Structures are given as structure tokens and as C-alpha cells.
């Protein structure tokens, strides 16, 4: 894992993408610091971070797009497969390299509150807990985008998928609140989601029966629960879609709350998508 990590980390700074990523983050954090902290004279750096989360939406897919896709395109994945390394070590090496690049950005942003404290009183505890939340938000988004990069050998497709997913996460709460909360709509929504999951699984495994099986496994409890106790569906779809609102979890940090629930939420997203990336990498040997 160490070798992969070192190589990947270095690669971000030999092919510019690391510099571009850091440059964009520094530019926008500078602009927002200027606007929020200096011109509007707020001592709270959390507000700046709140604005920065929007920048992550664009810049993280661009940073991560090559992480897995490029290996496939250049056929270097064959080297990685033939090395005495587990797929989990390879993926973990790549993931840690990505979050290290992001950590540089977050670390540098951590200096800003110190500078601000020279000119007024800064609530360090809430500022740095917000910075931690910001870092975890970024790590979760990186995990999602890395998984999307593992699905394709085209960097462009990886970036487009990534930005699409980020947008969906960003808008999810707003979209979910548009949906009616009655139980029938919710039930239909769950059926559609189950079918969609089956379709995605079927496409990923290129096997109609596995996809159909997955859809059936999801549909059976969905229908059973509806028949037995339909009332649980009231509002269920909205709240389930709310779980996908990755960005909104950061709001509590941005308003100065240390939200343990959100930390657990981000960590589980990270684990889940890193796991999916490992599975995708492992699975490719079978196709």
C-alpha cells in the first residue's frame, strides 16, 4: 500500500492536477475569506467553509477522475494486478493519496482562523470542528468520485458522472421536499428505486439474472411491508432521499455544531464507497 500511496501522491504533483486542485481551492477560499471574514467582518470561518462546500462539488470530481480510470486506459492496472498486493491495498493507497492532497488544502485553510485571531476573537473550537467536518465531507465526496472513476476507463466520463452525483447530492433535499409524502407515492417511489438498483446491479455484473434477483430481493420486503403495515411509508421516501443529501450534513458544522451523527454518516459513506471501489477492481478480473 505504501508504494501505491507514494506513487499516486507524487503523480498528482507531476501532472499538474494536484496543483490545479490546490490552486482552485486556495483561490476560492481566499475570495470567500475576503468576502465573508474581511469585508463583512465576521470572525466565523465556518461561513467561509459553508460557501466552499459548493466549490468541492466541481473540483473533487476533477481531482479524482483519473484515479482509477487512468490505470485502465494505460493498462497499468495489469501491473497492479500482477503485483503481490491485494486489491484493497491498491485502492486504499489511491484513496489515501487523494485525501492527502485534499488534506494539504484543508491544512492550509486551517491557517486562516489563526490569522483572523490576530484581529479579533475567533471561536477556535467551533471553527476547527467545522474544518474537520469540511475535511470529512471532502473525503466522503472523494470516495464516491473514486468509485465512479473505477467504473470507467474514460476520465471525462468519470468527471461527468462525478459532477452529476455531486449535483444530485447537493440538490437532494430540495428535490425530496417537492415529493408528496403520502404512502402511495412513497411506495411507488420505493418500487422504482428497487427496480433501478436491480438495473444498475444487472448492468455492473452484465448478468440479467443477478440484476433481476437483486430487484426481487428488494421488492419482496417493500411490497410485504406495504401490505402488512402501509402507514410506515408515509414520508419514508422523503426521509430516505434525505440520507443522500451529503452536503446538508455539513450545515450543522457550518453553523457551529459539532455533529457526531454527521461524522458517523461521513465515515460510513467513505467505508461504503471505498469498499465498492475494491469490489469493482476485484470484479474486473472476472470479466
Amino acid at each position, binding site marked *: 500500500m505504501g508504494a501505491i500511496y507514494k506513487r499516486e501522491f507524487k503523480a498528482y504533483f*507531476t501532472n499538474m492536477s494536484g496543483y490545479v486542485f490546490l490552486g482552485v481551492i486556495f483561490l476560492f477560499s481566499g475570495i470567500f475569506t475576503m468576502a465573508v471574514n474581511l469585508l463583512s467582518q465576521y470572525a466565523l470561518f465556518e461561513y467561509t467553509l459553508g460557501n466552499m462546500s459548493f466549490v468541492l462539488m466541481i473540483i473533487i470530481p476533477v481531482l479524482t477522475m483519473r484515479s482509477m480510470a487512468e490505470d485502465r486506459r494505460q*493498462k497499468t492496472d495489469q501491473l497492479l494486478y500482477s503485483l*503481490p498486493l491485494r486489491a484493497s491495498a491498491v485502492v486504499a493507497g489511491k484513496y489515501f493519496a487523494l485525501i492527502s492532497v485534499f488534506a494539504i488544502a484543508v491544512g492550509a485553510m486551517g491557517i486562516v482562523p489563526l490569522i483572523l485571531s490576530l484581529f479579533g476573537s475567533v471561536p477556535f473550537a467551533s471553527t476547527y470542528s467545522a474544518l474537520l467536518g469540511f475535511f470529512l465531507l471532502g473525503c466522503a465526496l472523494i470516495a464516491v468520485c473514486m468509485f465512479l472513476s473505477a467504473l470507467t476507463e474514460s476520465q471525462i466520463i468519470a468527471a461527468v458522472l462525478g459532477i452529476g452525483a455531486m449535483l444530485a447530492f447537493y440538490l437532494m433535499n430540495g428535490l425530496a421536499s417537492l415529493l408528496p409524502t403520502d404512502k402511495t407515492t412513497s411506495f411507488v417511489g420505493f418500487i422504482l428505486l428497487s427496480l433501478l438498483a436491480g438495473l444498475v446491479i444487472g448492468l455492473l455484473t452484465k448478468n440479467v439474472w443477478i440484476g433481476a434477483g437483486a430487484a426481487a430481493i428488494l421488492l419482496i420486503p417493500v411490497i410485504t411491508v406495504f401490505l402488512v403495515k402501509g402507514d410506515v411509508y408515509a414520508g419514508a421516501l422523503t426521509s430516505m432521499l434525505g440520507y443522500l443529501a451529503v452536503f446538508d450534513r455539513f450545515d450543522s458544522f457550518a453553523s457551529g455544531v459539532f455533529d457526531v451523527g454527521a461524522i458517523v454518516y461521513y465515515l460510513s459513506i467513505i467505508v461504503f464507497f471505498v469498499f465498492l471501489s475494491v469490489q469493482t477492481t476485484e470484479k474486473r478480473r472476472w470479466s
Partner: protein
Amino acid sequence: MIEVRNLTKKYGSHTAVDGLSFTVEKGRIYGLLGPNGAGKSTTMNIITGCLAATSGTVLIDGHDVFEDPIEAKKLVGYLPEMPPLYTEMTPLEYLRFVGEAKGVPYEKREREIKDVMEATGITDVKDRLIRNLSKGYRQRVGIAQAMIGSPEVIILDEPTVGLDPLQIIEIRELIRSLGETKTVVISSHILAEISAVCDHVIIIAGGRKVADDSLEGLEKRATVGNGLEIVTRVPESRVRAIVAGISGAEIRDISSEGGKATAVIGPGQLSADGLSEAVFKAFARAGETLLSLCWKESSLESIFLELTDPREYEPAGPDEIAGPEDGDAPDGDDGGDKPSDGKDGGYVPLFGSGDTEE
């Protein structure tokens, strides 16, 4: 060292490798030979753990590649068909990365990288970006990568593709010197390459093994195709009649062009000289003349063409012609008949003419 048992790989409905079994012994150079699309690369990818098999097992020094991949992969250095190079690195950086990933201890790493770079002749370009290197140098960096960590087995998939003739000779030298201390498996669709460096040849076609023999064994087997070529102005039918009078001799191939007939006569039980004399006498007795009479040695090339001919291996099945034990005592009838069956498969007299085959 490597044991492949009943390996099968299916891509959807297409079977790339079909029940392949063979054993690679320690300290020899093996050649995996076959026409394009025979399943060579697929087989190598499976042996090195880059690809999972549909069924079958691969053991490397007792370690199953699927069950115990880390231990198995430690023993193998692999150069895939396309050298897996990070083009934004220099060869030195790249080899350091591979060395570290293969778990070569830090103290030994630099020394080993230096040795490998010297052996593959890339010391001069070690600080240039791989992106800017020529195809030949990239291929060498790829081979160097396989050699790092001094694995017991080195597997090279078409190592000389895209190189110029001088580089090909150098790489062959390198493979031969590797073979002195290690087990080497190379693949190629070029027969001359295999016969230049390998001790042992495994020929596969259509995903199945059609021959598995030492180079000498195959050459011995090739002599079954030896024959006497005559050119004469006598019409074909008359040639047949005359040759029919010689006991043991049989006409394998006959063609006429511009009033001349060219025939290839199989010796049957006769020796080369015996057949030449008998043919000469028979024509003399019949009052006919010969324009030329020439003993032609068959070659590995003809064996290769014969074995990999789709019409041959499909009905025959791998067992009938495979296996080293058949090699020493080829039955004259079977082996001798085959070339005459495939008229257009023909009689390829010159060894090594396959060099140009792509």
C-alpha cells in the same frame, strides 16, 4: 514450478481457453506458441493473476493463484502484451516503485535496480520520462519491471514485438541469460523466435494445447514430413504410375505448371538416399528424365502450420497429438498422411520463413 490444470476461460459464449493443462519445470525456457487469438495472452494473464479463470487451477510452486494470490504473485514477474508503464515517471522512479510494491527491502533495492537496468540496457535513459522513450526502450523497461524482485518465474508476453532486428537479438540474448538461473515463459506467434530461445515448446490453437514437447522432440517429429521433391516434364498421371512402382514411396503432393510437373514423394520406410536412388532408377527404367531431384527436410514451421490448422485440431482433439511421449515415436502413417490431406496447407520447405508472418 507452474502447474496449469484444466484451465478454461469464457468470455460470454466465446471460449478463449478451453481445458488447457501443462506443467512448467524449473530452470527451463518455455515457449507458448500459437496463432493470433489462440489464447496465449489470456493464459498468461490467468497464470499471473491478472484475470480470473472460469474454471481450472494454476499452481505456482504449490501456491494456488486464486486461493493464495500474494504468495503466488511474489514468485512471478510479468510483462503483459502492452508494457504497463506509468509514462509520467522516469524508468528509475518506475523501477523504484515496482521494487517497493514487490516488497524488495530498501537496502537491496537500489543495488537490484542498478543490476536490472544494466541487464536490460536502460541505464542511459534512466532519468528520461518514459513517455519520451522509444518503443524498444519501453519494452525493455517493461522487462526490467518483470525482473525486479528476482522472481523465480518470469513470464513475458510477446517480448520482442515492435523491436528492430538488433533489439530483437539483444532481447533474445537477455532471455537466454535469464533462463540460466530462472524459469522463463515467453509467448509468441513467431516460430523462429521460439526456436531461437526456448528449450520447450507448448503450441496452442483455439484455446487448446495441440503440442507440448521439447524443441528436439518437435524437430524429430517434423522429420516425418521430409520428402523428395522432383521436377520433370512427364505428365502427372505418368509420374503417379512410375512412383506407384516403388514400394513404400507415396506421392504427397503433385502439381503441374508450364508443362512441368512437381511432385513431393514421401519416403515411407526408405531412407533419403534409398528413395532418391529408387526414384532415379524407376524413371530411368521407364525411359523418362528428371529435371531435378532434391531431398527436402521438413521443419518446425510445417509442424506448426499442421498443428494449428483449424481443420486439424478441431476433430483430432488435443489428446491425440499432444504429449511428449508421442513425440519420440511418431507413427509414420498418421503423421505422413496429414500434409497430403491439406493440399493448400502445403509443404513449407524453408525454416524460419514465418518471421514475416504477422
